């Protein structure tokens, strides 16, 4: 009876057991791994090849090997405005999702009781209505004939407007990405053993200290996952700003769509995509390391 080693049941010792164990591991990661190889790595290779090409006469890709596309990006760093705009928008959106989503996730996980599943389902049902229709509904709600005008009347400003401003975009973003923040948080908080919280309170810790030292560390994996799942797609988002922001903001997503669809310059778009992916990978890695530093974690198989 050894604890702390990977156990696979009776007969786990010896070569036969180890081979079986390795086989099990292989089978487990095979499907996802195969998908990644064929549908992620291969397309990325294609994109990288494209990034060294040139625009074909009528648009698209023509084979070549030039560094022009990368040169254009690095040489025009003052044209990095879309990137910084997207960045601030994504950060604001992520914080918004966190502020709205964390209490909700906590509520469902700890106070939901037997109705937890119902709460979760109700959370996601609005998103089975088309994204576009939902966003257009926000156009109505925030429009001058409804909320926009109402707030304008209250504060006495005739030219007040919610639509077309960063506020409208923020509302739209938080609305659209909330489940992606709530689900990971819920999934980790739900596992939290309530006795810990009670014990902490019994030992005289304040509510805030309990939250900070008991709840938050447990929620941390969910928090990281949630913020990454929300922040990253927001960086590429352009439809919500286009509709609710009245097209007044030019973002990374717009730039990519312009390259691939309007200008049909696939090599230029591919180069931008490669740079974006590299920068984002760096950001995510740094973020994960930063949040996890000092935490001792061992991956121990539960199988």
């Amino acid at each position, binding site marked *: 009876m050894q604890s702390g080693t990977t156990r696979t049941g009776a007969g786990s010792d010896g070569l036969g057991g180890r081979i079986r164990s390795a086989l099990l591991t292989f089978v487990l990661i095979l499907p996802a791994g195969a998908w990644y190889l064929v549908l992620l790595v291969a397309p990325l290779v294609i994109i990288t090849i494209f990034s060294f090409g040139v*625009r074909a*006469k*009528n*648009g*698209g*890709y023509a084979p070549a090997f030039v560094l022009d596309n990368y040169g254009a990006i690095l040489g025009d760093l003052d*044209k990095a*405005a*879309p990137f910084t705009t997207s960045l601030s928008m994504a950060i604001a959106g992520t914080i918004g999702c966190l502020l709205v989503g964390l209490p909700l996730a906590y509520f469902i996980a700890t106070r939901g009781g037997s109705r937890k599943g119902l709460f979760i389902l109700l959370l996601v049902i609005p998103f089975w209505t088309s994204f576009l229709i939902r966003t*257009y509904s926000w*156009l109505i709600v925030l*429009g*001058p*004939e409804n909320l926009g005008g109402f707030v304008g009347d209250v504060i006495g400003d005739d*030219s007040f*407007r919610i*639509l*077309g401003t960063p506020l409208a975009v923020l509302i739209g973003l938080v609305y659209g990405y909330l489940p992606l923040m709530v689900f990971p948080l819920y999934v980790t908080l739900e596992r939290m053993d309530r006795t810990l919280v009670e014990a902490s309170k019994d030992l005289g810790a304040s509510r805030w200290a309990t939250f900070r030292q008991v709840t938050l560390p447990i929620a941390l994996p969910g928090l990281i996952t949630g913020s990454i799942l929300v922040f990253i797609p927001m960086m590429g988002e352009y439809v919500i700003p*286009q*509709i609710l922001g*009245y*097209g*007044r903001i*030019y973002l990374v997503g*717009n*730039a990519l769509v*312009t390259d*691939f*669809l*309007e*200008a*049909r*310059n*696939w090599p230029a778009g591919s180069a931008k995509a490669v740079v974006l992916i590299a920068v984002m990978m760096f950001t995510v890695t740094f973020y994960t390391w930063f949040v996890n530093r000092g935490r001792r974690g061992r991956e121990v198989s539960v199988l």
Partner: protein
Amino acid sequence: MAQRDLGEYLARISQNKVNRRSFLAASGLVGTSAFLAACSSSGSSGGASAAPAASAAPAASAAPAGDIEDSLFMYNWSEYINPDNIETYKAEFGVNTFQYDIFSNNEELIAKLQGGASGYDIAAPTAEYVPGMVEEGFLAKLDLSRIPNQKYIDPAFLGLDWDPTNEYQLPKDFGTTGILYREKLTGKPVESWRELYDLTLGEFSGKTVFVDSMGDVFVMPLKMLGYSLNSVDKAELEEARKILLDLAPHILSLDSDTYQVKLSSEEAALCLGWTGPLLELRANPDTADTAYSVPTEGSLFWLDTWVMMADAPHPNASYAWLDYIHRPEIQALETEYNGYATPSSEARKLVSQELLDDPAIFPPESVMPLLEGAVDTSGNNQRLDIWAEFKQKIGS
């Protein structure tokens, strides 16, 4: 550019009178022939269906060579074909599956084709993309002997720069880009780009919407300066750039899809756009003052086309469709449904007077010489840079 021909064409047409009776008679004949055809082919579940039942309609349709397949895969804008016409086609030719797939803009269509997508029979791109598609080999060269009804297409739409030999596309419908405005708010008609410019910089700052389309937005400054809207001349574009950057801070929004919402809520009074939402806005009593004008300096004339894919899986059905859709009575029904002008002069005789008289839909003779067809300039880097700069300065 066949602008002169276009002018002549419209001069001739405006002299034709239409009356409801002939239109109804034509559609009655179409209906009858379709009914008869349906009866005769109702037993068969597909496969061959030769020439439709005897019809006394003015547009006889020759039997396409070969058996007509059971399906047709259409790739088109949303709701761009009169559903009645689809039903009649299906009944008449025994095509049981009319697969109607939708794209949201030309760029998607092109990108998909360039990526290698295939499987469609007929598509409806806008004319300026046709030359590129031909060069890339996406389109089938049409055997015009199989489309006898193309004789009804007005010569003004044949031999245009987009397809000099007329072998790759057939015209579908056409229209213009111009100024949409709420006359109640502006108090007077807005009839030139210059006026739009002045109003946007002045009294209506923050109340103007432009469609989010590079080719259409460039029309305004270039035409104001008296240049071709397809100009790729460095100096001309530079001048256009100045005008665009003047306008940018005063523009409320770049919006191709919901500008009618902004016009109806009076958030915007002016719009550089198309005639799509016009009929509905005018039908609504609250927004009945909405008007459209083709600016006096000139504007863009767009043409949507029918093309057949080079690898169309159902060529016979495709030819049947192309021939069928150019019957004048069918063309007239298309115009009634879409609200866009038909390129067939025969068909115009069957269109209701109300639509014919509407200058937004059928541009009057005086306007035609001012119109210029667009050319695909999406590869021009200067234009792209100006466009990106313009977009970043909107509303700032």
